[in-house]
């Protein structure tokens, strides 16, 4: 069973705050993704990576940075958090590229920006 973990599970910060969301996968997958999910919408891709040191821009990257430090670890950075970034964030991994391979999701991080 593929395993993806996220931390923290819940985070509250203030406008202008600095937040780092962490994701780790122990599946030896090459691809990792960060999504956000808002009520009434499907998941939207923020950033993704196909290996350590690589970063690719997704559909909604504004206000977010990301870094893939190792094959296992992918971080999402909000350096000046805004209330519009209040959302549920999911990390995922897959052995191959995007929609051609099954993606495995972490449990999610609920972020609230006051």
């Amino acid at each position, binding site marked *: 069973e593929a395993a993806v973990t996220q931390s923290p599970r819940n985070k509250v910060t203030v406008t202008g705050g600095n937040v780092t969301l962490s994701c780790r996968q122990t599946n030896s997958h090459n691809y990792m993704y960060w999504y956000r999910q808002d009520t009434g*919408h*499907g*998941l939207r*891709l923020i950033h993704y990576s196909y290996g350590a040191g690589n970063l690719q821009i997704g559909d909604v990257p504004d206000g977010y940075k990301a870094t893939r430090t190792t094959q296992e670890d992918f971080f999402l950075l909000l350096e000046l958090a805004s209330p519009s970034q209040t959302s549920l964030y999911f990390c995922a991994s897959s052995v191959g590229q*995007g929609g051609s391979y099954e993606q495995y*999701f972490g*449990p999610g991080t609920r972020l609230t920006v006051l």
Partner: protein
Amino acid sequence: GDQVEQSPSALSLHEGTGSALRCNFTTTMRAVQWFRKNSRGSLINLFYLASGTKENGRLKSAFDSKERYSTLHIRDAQLEDSGTYFCAAGASSGSWQLIFGSGTQLTVMP
């Protein structure tokens, strides 16, 4: 326009009954995944299909790439089936990304 159209947006079922969720695609997709977001917000993989049908317990899913749709059938619904169900698909050409439907909020009532 949206490439993945999911319906219905909300569905209420009584325990023991069943129904189907559907995703229509505006372009040819190479594979589809179905997920359930539970009450804790976790996203649970239900199915991954590149073609045909798969069944797991009370759930059954079908994917027809040529006809551009996928379905998720739920039978003998239980209270714990409540949650938001998402389909997501990968396009056969152009963007390779996984494109999500907007979700179906399922409520199972006693």
